[in-house]
């Protein structure tokens, strides 16, 4: 009886989590009478007096500090909107003035760091802004500075082989977009970076990286976690799979991992289980890595970076 109770409780708890935030598209057939109760958010252009809004809320001193920060960002050619937006967000959340200033500084620093890397990846002003914004969003999503640096380094290596600059820029944009979305979905910085790093290393095109990202976003619902899915994708790419095969390959790997666990195999010797997936990477890349040899493709990005 206790077992039954436990199962029922587990099922209910899982259900409550699973239902959360499901886009309920069926509901859009609701009656017209509900329409009149709606409130509408209109996209607003930043046309109001920023200084006044900040001054009225936090006083002259805060407004001046904030204004100085914004002017500095502008002088450096960084976008002002994200810094301003952070101030507004802090105000809406009722955050103390000092913390808002710190957060604004963090945003400016993100864009500063992103701008530096973007300039190393592309030369056209428009492209620099596009890549910069993508990198800044990666950092906001949880990618660490050094991991962004690793991806940028790999992209620079790859750019030497790519046929055109446009191709290289497109790949950079898609690579950072993929890393951003994996991080936004909850993958760790290391897992997201390793996956993207493997894709670049295995000569995925910008279109391939986009296919990989789409597959990741679509199939995250069925994965145990974003980090595990990212690890599985990285392992599949390491094995030489194309972007269309990543999901099915990950499922096979997860099934193999489960079987190995049931049989009592640890996978730690790197021979029977290919590492990653639901078991975690184990840090050695498994048998695949030993096949590919130390200097070639197949290792984790941080190991190859050290070579």
């Amino acid at each position, binding site marked *: *009886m206790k077992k*039954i*109770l436990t199962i*029922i*409780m587990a099922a*209910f708890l899982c*259900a*409550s*989590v699973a*239902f*959360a*935030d*499901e*886009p*309920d*598209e069926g*509901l*859009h057939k*609701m009656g017209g009478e*509900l329409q009149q*109760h*709606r*409130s*509408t*958010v*209109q*996209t*607003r252009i*930043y046309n109001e007096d920023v200084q006044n809004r900040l001054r009225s809320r936090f006083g002259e001193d805060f407004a001046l500090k904030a204004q100085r920060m914004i002017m500095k960002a502008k002088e450096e050619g960084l976008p002002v909107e994200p810094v*301003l*937006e*952070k101030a*507004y*967000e*802090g*105000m*809406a*959340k*009722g*955050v103390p003035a000092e*913390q808002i200033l*710190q*957060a604004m500084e*963090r*945003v400016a620093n993100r864009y500063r760091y992103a701008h530096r890397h973007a300039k190393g990846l592309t030369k056209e002003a428009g492209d620099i802004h596009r890549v910069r914004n993508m990198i800044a*969003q990666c950092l*906001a*999503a*949880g990618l660490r500075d050094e991991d962004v640096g690793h991806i940028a380094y790999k992209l620079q290596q790859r750019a030497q082989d790519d046929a055109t600059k446009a191709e290289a820029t497109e790949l950079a944009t898609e690579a950072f977009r993929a890393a951003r*979305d994996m*991080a*936004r*979905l*909850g993958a760790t910085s290391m897992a997201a970076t390793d996956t993207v790093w493997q894709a670049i290393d295995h000569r995925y095109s910008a279109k391939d990286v986009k296919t990989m990202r789409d597959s990741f976003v679509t199939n*995250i619902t069925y994965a145990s976690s974003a980090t595990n899915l990212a690890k599985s994708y990285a392992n599949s790419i390491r094995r030489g799979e194309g972007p269309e095969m990543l999901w099915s390959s990950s499922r096979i790997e997860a099934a193999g991992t489960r079987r190995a666990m049931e049989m009592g195999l640890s996978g730690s010797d790197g021979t029977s289980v290919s590492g990653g997936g639901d078991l975690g990477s184990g840090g050695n890349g498994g048998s695949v890595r030993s096949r590919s040899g130390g200097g070639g493709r197949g290792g984790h990005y941080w190991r190859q970076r050290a070579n």
Partner: protein
Amino acid sequence: MKRYLLLVIAFLFLLIGCASRHYFTVEEDVVRMCLRKPDAKAVYFASSLDGFEPVMAKQNGDEAWEVTVPKNVEFRYFYIVDEVVYVPVCAFKEHDDFGAENCIYVPRM
């Protein structure tokens, strides 16, 4: 024991029924963001669409609070429920630089 089992099931149903639930519905030009918080007295929606200006949500017949937003734009958002910031369960998230997170709406292209 059976009575105990029934009580547990009833309690769990009650728990799920009271739980807040966040969902959105995509319509022709807009997305309807809904937050089921039957006990809330006032719910505001704040997003990067308009500089996080809190917009009062309206209650619909489903005991949910709702606002409509443009469909094809990515934005960050959170709710303010009875003067407390509330970040619902959502697929895409990012750090908010204040020690918490924001939800991100990503349009399906």
